[in-house]
């Protein structure tokens, strides 16, 4: 396709009669996409060692189901999803699990995380994959015959996550969308960040996969409307998708897939911005697109859904854009997840002596890697290897002059200068009140700031601190509850002890009284015995029995004083004793 043709298509895209809206702010950036989007998608070699992190998604890290020394096949389950918001991890190559240990992962902190390390073999044998459909099945009928559960289960088991960058487990998102009655499916093909072209080449080279993936997602969501939003700087991809759609004739009763070109302006590919451009609706503050009946998926996610349903293949590879001034042949390369970045760079060909930074992601939202000995993950859409002077290093920040360029450029209509003051002063409550949590961290404000203030860094910091404070407060509340419960428990134990002591004392007192009474009765009994020595034996026995009965009765009436219910005999004795005392 020559340049002239391209221009004509671009012109048609611009003139296409779609009612579009706009989002506030945004900036126009140099695309820098033409370096890498010309070539076909190359395939990276299987590395000697695959380093596969267990946490490549939002939510709980996956739980390993293999042990060190296990032999695994390509596509075999390595770790299962752990909880509702989680995704499984699969072996991207066959070989032997040599370790399950902490290894450096691509993260701005440069910290380590738990990874499964596989020493690959030469055979690269596939696990027995179970596709739901095959390429021979025509789309209209075959997809129709699948149930929602079949598709979502396949997506969940394939470990598919939002490949646009959010990394939210796709099956969980689809599940919520089904429950929430979403009526619009938006496929995000905008890819607005400079340098990145992985979605662009995917649409150009494998448009059928994208379309079939979209049809599958559409079936699950049950959307009444399906829009693909694509930036108007990708005429070839637009053309390829149009051609692919015409290959699948949807019945007239079903909603058609519409491809809508949107003006290229950063960040048109932000989920909330794309929704606003296509539908004119705004996602509510701190809400989700589902709150306004919309679900958004990325084109690469759609292609992964196709792979899972038609090939049975889990998500074990992704297309990575390797570009930047230090790369000899910028290109898109399909890399197995877990391949060390150093090996990717070696294969693509990089002038190591020219490198200034290695950025994962784009120049606006990506982060500098502290090391290249980290693996490619599901999140790695782009490796930007910049040479000296390619990406402007911001000069030292100057004071804010209140020019309001940041608020003019903010696509979320926030007030960056206000949030900046509060974040800097650590007045987190105020920063929160100015909706710092609605910030999508696109970096437009930092880009627009004439004083080079690292605004977005401040907002990231403020969000982090607010979350952390909340976490600490929760922890403190739990500690207080536990402490108060302990005090209560100790108090109860003390009371119980005191009560037990009181009871014991009472019992002792009773026993003493009883003993005294018994002793007295015994002495009485002996006394009466001596009195009646002369009477015959039978009378003696009767007397004894009576005495015993009396003792028993006395025991039963333990509370009664031993001066109550005295027999005439006893009374006589007491009287005698009293007499004796009075005489003495």
């Amino acid at each position, binding site marked *: 396709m020559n340049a002239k043709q391209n221009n004509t298509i671009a012109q048609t895209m611009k003139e296409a009669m779609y009612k579009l809206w706009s989002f506030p702010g945004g900036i126009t950036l140099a695309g820098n996409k033409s370096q890498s989007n010309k070539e076909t998608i190359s395939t990276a070699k299987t590395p000697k060692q695959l380093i596969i992190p267990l*946490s490549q998604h939002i939510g709980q890290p996956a739980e390993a189901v293999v042990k060190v020394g296990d032999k695994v096949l390509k596509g075999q389950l390595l770790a299962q999803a752990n909880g509702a918001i989680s995704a499984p991890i699969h072996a991207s190559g066959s070989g032997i699990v040599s370790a399950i240990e902490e290894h450096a*992962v691509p*993260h*701005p*902190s*440069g*910290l380590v*995380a738990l990874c499964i390390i596989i020493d690959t073999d030469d055979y690269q044998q596939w696990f027995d994959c179970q596709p739901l459909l095959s390429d021979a099945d025509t789309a209209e009928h075959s997809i129709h015959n699948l149930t929602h559960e079949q598709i979502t289960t396949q997506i969940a088991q394939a470990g598919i996550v939002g490949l646009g960058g959010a990394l939210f487990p796709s099956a969980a998102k689809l599940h919520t969308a089904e429950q929430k009655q979403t009526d619009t499916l938006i496929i995000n093909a905008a890819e607005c960040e400079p340098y990145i072209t992985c979605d662009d080449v995917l649409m150009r080279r494998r448009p059928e996969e994208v379309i079939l993936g979209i049809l599958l997602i559409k079936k699950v969501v049950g959307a009444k409307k399906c829009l693909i939003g694509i930036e108007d700087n990708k005429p070839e991809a637009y053309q390829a998708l149009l051609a692919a759609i015409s290959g699948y004739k949807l019945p007239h009763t079903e909603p058609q897939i519409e491809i809508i070109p949107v003006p290229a302006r950063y960040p048109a590919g932000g989920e909330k911005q794309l929704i606003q451009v296509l539908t004119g609706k705004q996602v509510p503050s701190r809400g989700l697109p589902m709150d306004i009946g919309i679900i958004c998926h990325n084109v690469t996610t759609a292609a992964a859904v196709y792979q899972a349903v038609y090939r049975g293949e889990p998500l074990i590879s992704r297309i990575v854009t390797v570009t930047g001034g230090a790369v000899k042949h910028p290109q898109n390369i399909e890399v197995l997840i877990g391949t060390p970045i150093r090996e990717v760079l070696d294969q693509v060909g990089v002038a*190591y*002596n020219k*490198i200034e*930074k*290695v950025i994962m992601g784009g120049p606006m939202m990506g982060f*500098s*890697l*502290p*090391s*290249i*000995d980290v693996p490619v993950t599901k999140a790695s859409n782009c490796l930007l290897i910049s040479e000296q002077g390619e990406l402007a*290093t*911001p*000069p*030292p*920040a100057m004071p804010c002059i209140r020019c309001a360029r940041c608020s003019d450029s903010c696509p979320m209509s926030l007030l960056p200068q206000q949030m900046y003051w509060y974040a*800097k002063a*650590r007045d987190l409550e105020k920063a929160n009140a100015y909706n710092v949590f609605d910030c999508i961290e696109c970096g437009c404000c930092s880009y627009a700031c004439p004083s080079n*203030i*690292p605004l977005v*860094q*401040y907002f*990231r*910091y403020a969000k*982090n*601190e607010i979350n*952390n404070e909340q976490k*600490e407060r929760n*922890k*403190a*509340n*739990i*500690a*207080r509850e*536990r*402490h108060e*419960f*302990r005090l209560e428990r100790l108090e109860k134990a003390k009371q119980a002890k005191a009560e037990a002591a009181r009871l014991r004392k009472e019992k002792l007192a009773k026993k003493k009284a009883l003993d005294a009474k018994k002793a007295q009765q015994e002495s009485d009994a002996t006394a009466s015995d001596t009195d009646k020595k002369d009477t015959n034996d039978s009378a003696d026995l009767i007397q004894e029995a009576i005495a015993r009965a009396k003792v028993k009765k006395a025991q039963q009436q333990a509370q009664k004083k031993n001066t109550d219910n005295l027999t005439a005999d006893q009374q006589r004795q007491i009287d005698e004793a009293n007499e004796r005392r009075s005489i003495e």
Partner: protein
Amino acid sequence: MITGILAFVALASFFGLVLGLSAVIFKVESSPVVDQIDTLLPQTQCGQCSFAGCHQYAQAIASGDAPINKCPPGGDNLIQSLADLLDVEALPLDETEAAHSGPIVAVIIEDTCIGCTLCIQACPVDAILGAAKQMHTVIENECTGCELCVAPCPVDCIEMIPIKQTISNWRWPEPQYHTNNQAASTIYTTLDQVLAENTQA
């Protein structure tokens, strides 16, 4: 003149009545200051403030018997929020107590533990699990790092270790206002080193 006086008396009594009633009807329940202070305190129950627990310290602050800078676990952030709450001057942290160095957690060396239960009795938040002559262990998530269990242990098998930094508890550093270039260069040193090796090789 009398009409004037009567009119004003009537007005005054009417508004007085309205104000008085609204004060009763729309009464704002404000939580007692002790509870407000207690909510801010970190609830480690460590006693480093020389009071038995966080609640007692909150009571002492409320009654004016204790300064607001006696809580090392809360640090400067706590002092600031206490100062805001009570509308007093923020003081620097009282460093007479051992300086607080990041979040820590108690760990029982299980090989050495003799199962004496003394640490269980000392723990203010019931974060130690065990029984007499059985090995004890600390529930890491519940431990506040107060160190109260360290002293009673007769075999010195409790160690206080800093909470390990992982990706899930890592936080973005505060941006350096005037020296963001320096900060940036420190982040990239590792990559530079890697690449330096590469160019040499």
